């Protein structure tokens, strides 16, 4: 029911968000997040692992790091005024509009959210009081041009996961229900996280995520002290914490922007394409999606590192996050995916 307005009470609008650069450890997760910003077509990111490792903190911090975006004022989908071809019907047909600068949206999808809440619904308020048939946008609309974060994605109802992945892949939400027919842009990067001990994601959903990382709690005192001290400093004085970390955030922000610009010019030599294909073949990953993602991720990594050509080292470094969740699994296979991939890298690409 008409609840999407309320969820904004949960956003971090007025709060200073934890700085992304200050997130201790979690290097793989951080790198992968950065790459989804350099090239959003990589697809979503799945972070599975221990509870309480700061996954949500990292994701929220990351969205706050990204450069603010320009949006059409008052548009529920915050359409991009500079790319009206992908805007919603209203913005496209509007003669004139005002623009505003907003933060990249991050929407937290609570577990147990109903389809109405996610995809949108008939606006009951207007329907009942004024007899008008109006679409009330849901969380997918809010997430347009930003990030949709689902903690415990492995426990989410299957039909919702299907819906989300469909929308994430097509970039638009088609709403055909309750006598309404609405189509609106919903381009977002889907980030899912969860603890595999509580249940796993169906294999057919797994490979719809672009990248996948395993998140572990560090087990040494020094890392814990680091985590606790930084977080404590943030909670004591968010303003001071922010100004201490902002220079680093700024640097990273600029690198991401530079990476985005460079991305178009990054070349993937044929030999590298072939190595990627050979690697996927050796690992027997299903379909072409794995190979495509691997190439995209390697290209984004090269761009982020200011290199114009994708090298073998980029492929090697991105193989694990791009392929880890795509291996055909014997459910009780002893060897972990990581080991199998590393072995294949050794065999196919050499040391």
């Amino acid at each position, binding site marked *: *029911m008409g609840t999407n307005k309320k*969820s904004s009470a949960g956003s971090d609008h007025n709060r200073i968000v934890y700085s992304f650069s200050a997130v201790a450890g979690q290097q793989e997760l951080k790198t992968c997040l950065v790459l989804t910003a350099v090239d959003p077509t990589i697809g979503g990111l799945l972070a599975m692992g221990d509870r309480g490792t700061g996954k949500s903190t990292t994701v929220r911090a990351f969205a706050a790091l990204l450069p603010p975006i320009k949006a059409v004022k008052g548009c529920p989908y915050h359409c991009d005024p500079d790319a009206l071809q992908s805007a919603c019907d209203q913005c496209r047909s509007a003669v004139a509009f005002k623009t505003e600068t907003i933060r990249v949206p991050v929407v937290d999808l609570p*577990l*147990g959210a109903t389809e109405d809440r996610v995809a949108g619904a008939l606006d009951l308020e207007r329907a*009942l009081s004024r007899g008008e048939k109006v679409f009330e946008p849901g969380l997918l609309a809010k997430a347009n041009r930003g990030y949709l974060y689902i903690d415990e994605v492995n426990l989410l109802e299957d039909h919702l996961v299907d819906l989300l992945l469909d929308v994430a892949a097509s970039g638009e939400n088609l709403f055909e229900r309750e006598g309404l027919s609405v189509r609106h842009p919903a381009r977002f990067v889907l980030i899912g996280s969860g603890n595999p001990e509580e249940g796993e994601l169906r294999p057919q959903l797994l490979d719809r995520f672009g990248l996948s990382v395993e998140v572990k*709690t560090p087990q040494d005192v020094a890392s814990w002290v680091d985590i*606790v001290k930084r977080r404590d400093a943030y909670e004591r004085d968010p303003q001071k914490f922010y100004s201490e970390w902002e220079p680093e955030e700024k640097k990273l922000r600029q690198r991401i922007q530079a990476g985005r610009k460079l991305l178009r010019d990054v070349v993937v030599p044929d030999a590298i394409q072939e190595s990627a294909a050979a690697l996927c073949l050796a690992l027997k990953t299903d379909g072409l999606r794995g190979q495509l993602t691997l190439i995209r991720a390697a290209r984004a990594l090269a761009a982020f590192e200011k290199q114009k050509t994708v090298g073998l080292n980029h492929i090697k470094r991105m193989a694990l996050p791009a392929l880890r969740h795509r291996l055909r699994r014997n459910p*009780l296979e002893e060897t972990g995916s990581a080991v199998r991939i590393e072995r294949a890298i050794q065999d196919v690409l050499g040391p």
Partner: protein
Amino acid sequence: MTEDDLADATWVAGLLALCGPTLGGALVADEVAESFVSSYIHAAGPSCALRTIPSSLAADALTGSLDLAATLALGKPVQSQGLLRSEQRLLLRRAERLDVACTSLMAQALDRDALLLIALMNPHDPDAQLAPKLDARLPFRVEGYAEPHWQPQHITTARTLLAAVALDSKWVQNLCEAALSIGVESPRAVLQAVAASRGIAALRGLKAVDESCAALAARLVLAHRAQHLPKPDQEQEEDETPPPPPPTADGDATENNAAPNPADAEVILEAIKSALPAHLLQMATEGFGKKAAGRTVKSSAPRKAGGQRGRRIGNKRASSLTGQRLDIIATLRTAAPWQPLRRKFGGNDRMIVTRDDFRVSRIKQRNEATAIFAVDASGSTAFQRLAEAKGAVETILAECYVRRDRVALVSFRSKKAEVLLPPTRSLERAKRALAGLPGGGGTPLAAGLDEAFALALQVRRAGGNPIVILLTDGRGNVTREGEGNRVKATEETLSAAKLFASEGFDAMLIDVSPEPQKTARTLAAAMHATYLPMPRASATDIAQPIRRALQVVSA
């Protein structure tokens, strides 16, 4: 009464009164709830009163929604305010029954420091498990009585101190070390302990966290998260060093980056040890290395009839709208024929909809099936069939993984039965449990049946559909007490089977003896179970009929 003699519960009440939502809240045992709440109110004052909510509340109540009845009565939109729109202090009864949507929303609210949650639970009910998400976000466990000690003026004074309380970095170091040494899962707990230690210092009127504050914080926040006893080498050290010096009360916090004093770390460990959960000590004596029981068991929240999730299969009249989705088209369609008549009385041109017109969607939830394998791992079976039984479980498991069913594993051998694997969808856990399935010894069949029965009941209570698959030769020779007495054992087995049948659980008995046994057939009849003799069964042969049964159960 001096502050040093205060009960832990009293400290927690004071801390929550002082820090409010920034500290999250506490999980409180039912029997001490009243004393805890009054201690808290005594300290916090009436302005911070707790609002009691039932665990059956719908997610709407938290997020807010259109109040349909009021909207229609007034003819203009009336929004019901969601509880979580503003900062809240809530008292939640039967917290383990909270549904997954509310759990998730509350966890989000706790993350943004907008909720103080006192969750009440019965600690003696083994089925009652707080959702892990909330569990991790509530720093304190309260199981003892609290006194009304703190008063609003204490709290006000402490609040003026709180922002300036200094914390020497050695305490962070020590708390982290202590937490790791007892197997605390996440650094989040240490953060909570750090915040608590500041609160304790403020309540004591100190300008900096000292040893006693850190030790108390460790006991209140870290001890109950212990997974094992502190590692032995640390214990040894403890024996060698003299007892820690008495706490010093001066708040001279110089930034100290020197190597932390080992004695300080021990104060914290010592404090933790005094409050370690009882089951850990028991595990230590029995030499178990297991994790705390039931950590990953899902909450026992029952599925609500006519829930909001699943496939829509039609609509029905609604008696009340709580938590259900209004089928707007059906509602309007119902109201339409009455419009001319109603307008005569109501007199304006808007659509007149009354409560009687409400229709809600009927939702069909796919019932989750849980296959409970009860495997006879006694000597008579072990050598021939255990490997096949394992194979069957693995095959079914691979399938459940795709179909989203769950699997549990009970094994019985020698003198007793045990649950090797609580209902799970996790391959990793199943793999581990299976690998560790031992064989040999007598056949305590009655105990095995009892265990499977208890598990099936538990699954049903949690809203699932259990199906029990018993793999045995049906020849029990060990009684419930663990004596080797074939006659008594057979008697007990049959009575257990009848009890089982009385609940009407779906069951299947797979006779794993080399030749079909009459005893097994009798047992199957008593259980009202399907009997399948499988003299030459391979893993896939066993898996076939089970697969069919599962499909029926979850249809």
